[in-house]
């Protein structure tokens, strides 16, 4: 890497980007005022984003706290609290220049010392994902009040991804320094730099955020306030959208079977954009330690036996895209030129025949168990579909059901044949993809690790090498090679690149503008009044 020292500088100016971002809203006058009601489900346990990063917490706290960067739909970094940044040619030193006029909600200025405190102290203690990233730093220092520098021990490709708001929310040093972060009384009244301030939280009912009049972007935000409404019952959530009592829902708020109905409503708009940073991918997890699942031909046969278009259209009611491999196509470094598994039961049978699995008197060649993921109706339907589809090629699938705790316990301890799973990819294969397939992540008792027991030294090498460089072309080559091997080996049977529906009242504009969609700060959301 170092002998090819080219002056490779990444530098983006805030001015150019601000101009770009202004275009969508420019056509219409962006008026002040308006209240937005958004569903939040389940109710977050706490609103301090540095301490809890569950989905609902991110959606609410994303309006209160901010990160240094945000990401556009193509996962290119965009300025937020950092107005510009530079990466040294060797990929080891990252320098961020911060906006100068940002203030905490209590009036104190936001400075580079807050950044150093957040990344080297606060998040190291409270945030597992941030800890994994920032422990790769040799030092983190404030060069002056508005410049902060991270020096890495060795290059780490997805380092910039770590500055998204939920991955590294900026926490106020003057409030938390010297306290026990997790139990600090200040956690009841979150203080951030974002466009909305915490006002009131009626547990079980709503969270009320109000406009931050001192917000550092002039004239913003446009909305007066946002109410996050807690509605635990799925049917009631759909009705709330139909009646217009809420103006936005996101993630899993609306059950898939209600989506076609709500999509047809005249007053709301549905979008599936704004989840690129999470880019969940679903699959059938295959325990490759057991017979006949240890034979890759059996796993390839599964790919041919399942009609993933049917799964998308009839079980997910049109949400998602049939997956082609381990990387979601909206994530960086996706490789589409891999072995294709079209729906073809004949090919599946040919592969099973080749393995020597002959059909018995009852028409079955093999018997496997499928532990259905206890995440609701849709996954149950999927289980029933898989059972029937595999029956067609002579594989008898016995369905097993369990509760959420039992599922985690059995899968993480490798006590299963087949099960379903889906994980977020966090915008980069090094963050959200490699963990499933590399052999040093075969860890008994740990969920979302390599529970299949898949081990391929070449895949390990490619993933390791790709994470340790920040040259995009080089990373693409390595990841493409890894994807080709994985798709040939089928360590899991990929099903869908999942999509979540976001329903937004048509009067509200600019809600989904980045890859983190509904978790964005909403400082440019405005309401068109009639």
């Amino acid at each position: 890497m170092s002998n090819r020292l080219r002056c490779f500088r990444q530098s983006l100016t805030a001015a150019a980007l601000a101009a770009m971002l202004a275009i969508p809203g420019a056509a219409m006058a962006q008026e002040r005022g308006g209240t937005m009601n958004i569903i939040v489900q389940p109710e977050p346990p706490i609103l301090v984003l540095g301490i809890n990063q569950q989905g609902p917490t991110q959606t609410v706290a994303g309006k209160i706290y901010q990160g240094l960067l945000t990401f556009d739909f193509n996962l290119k970094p965009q300025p937020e609290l950092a107005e510009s940044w530079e990466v040294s040619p060797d990929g080891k030193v990252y320098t961020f220049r911060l906006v100068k006029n940002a203030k905490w909600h209590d009036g104190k200025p936001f400075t580079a010392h807050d950044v150093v405190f957040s990344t080297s102290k606060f998040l190291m203690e409270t945030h597992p994902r941030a800890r994994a990233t920032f422990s790769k730093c040799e030092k983190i220092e404030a060069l002056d009040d508005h410049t902060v520098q991270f020096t890495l021990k060795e290059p780490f490709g997805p380092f910039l991804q770590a500055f998204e708001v939920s991955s590294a929310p900026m926490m106020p040093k003057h409030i938390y320094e010297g306290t026990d972060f997790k139990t600090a009384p200040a956690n009841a009244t979150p203080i951030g730099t974002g466009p909305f301030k915490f006002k009131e939280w009626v547990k079980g009912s709503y969270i009320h955020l109000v406009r931050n009049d001192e917000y550092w972007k002039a004239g913003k935000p446009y909305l007066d306030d946002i109410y996050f409404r807690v509605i635990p019952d799925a049917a009631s959530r759909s009705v709330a959208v139909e009646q217009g009592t809420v103006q936005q829902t996101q993630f899993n708020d609306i059950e898939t079977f209600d989506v076609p109905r709500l999509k047809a409503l005249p007053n709301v708009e549905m979008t599936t954009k704004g989840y690129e940073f999470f880019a969940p991918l679903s699959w059938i997890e295959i325990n490759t330690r057991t017979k006949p699942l240890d034979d890759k031909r059996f796993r390839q046969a599964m790919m041919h036996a399942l009609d993933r278009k049917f799964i998308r259209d009839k079980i997910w009611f049109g949400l998602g895209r049939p997956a082609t491999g381990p990387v979601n196509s909206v994530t960086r470094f996706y490789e589409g030129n891999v072995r294709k598994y079209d729906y073809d039961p004949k090919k599946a049978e040919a592969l099973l025949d080749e393995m020597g699995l002959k059909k018995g008197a009852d028409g079955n060649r093999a018997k496997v168990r499928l532990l259905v993921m206890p995440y609701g109706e849709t996954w149950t339907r999927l289980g029933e579909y898989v059972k029937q589809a595999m029956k067609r090629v002579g594989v008898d699938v016995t369905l097993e059901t369990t509760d959420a705790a039992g599922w985690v316990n059995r899968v993480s301890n490798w006590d299963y044949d087949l099960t379903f799973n889906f994980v977020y990819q966090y915008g980069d294969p090094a963050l959200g993809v490699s963990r499933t397939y590399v052999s040093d992540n075969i860890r008994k008792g740990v969920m979302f690790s390599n529970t299949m027991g898949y081990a391929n030294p070449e895949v390990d090498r490619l993933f390791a090498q790709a994470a340790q460089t920040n040259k995009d072309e080089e990373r693409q080559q390595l990841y493409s090679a890894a994807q080709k091997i994985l798709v040939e080996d089928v360590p899991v049977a990929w099903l869908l690149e999942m999509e979540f529906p976001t329903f937004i009242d048509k009067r509200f504009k600019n809600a989904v503008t980045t890859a983190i969609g509904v978790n964005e700060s909403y400082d440019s959301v405005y309401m068109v009044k009639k």
Partner: protein
Amino acid sequence: MTAAVITPSRKGSGFWAAFARNKGAVIGLVFLTLVILMAVFADLLFPTSPWDMTTIPFQPPLSEDALLGSDTLGRDIASGIAHGARVSLLIGLTSTAVAVLIGVLLGAVAGFYGGRVDDAVMRFTELFQTIPNFVLAVVLVAIFTPSLASIVLAIAIVSWPPLARLARGEFMSLRSREFVQAAVTTGQSNLTIIWRQILPNSLSPIIVSASLMVATAILLESSLSFLGLGDPNLMSWGYMVGAARTVIRQAWWMSFFPGIAILLTVLALNLVGEGLNDALNPKLARKGRA
């Protein structure tokens, strides 16, 4: 008083006449027979598995290849109802049989021996009666993971207490009768007296309440399946209603037909139970009708 002890020969001759006097019971019996036939011949009527996606999803009733429509995955509703009858009847009958076994055994012991034994058994029974039936069944199935055996067991465990109390009452009243005392004086063992003398004479009310219990068991199984606690490899009516509940506004037929099947079968069982009551407890029945 002695007339209450009906001899077997007299009971047999008057049984059908008494039963047929109740028109509802006859209709119930006819319908129940149809359901049983449907369950027995399900494989001939619908040779493919009820889980097979045989047609296009969301087909309304009276479509070409799906008389009662198809469900969200294109499975034939009619086939599901036929095969579901098996599961419902199987679970209804076996769980009732198990419940009768437990209930009559405990009730007989308590009623026959009385005293401390009675106290102990009845306190134990009350323990079960204080817990709501359905909640206990849900907990049991959830603990033992849903399967045919665990569902049968769970339903039996929540259903036996009323039978135990009934059997106890019968045994207590018969215990002091002359024929029992005669048996005691002739030196018959307690087991023989329970089995040969008292049990045959206390069967009528037990049969009647057991027949009604089959209906309750079917409802319990349907409710469990509705909540997703059924055996995931068996098609049952409750499962069909539960799975279709989510699309009821788009496709009413998916939950309507299995719902009707449950309703009619449970109704038929209740009618038959009433008929049995008329036939087996003529004195009680007449009093009730007056």
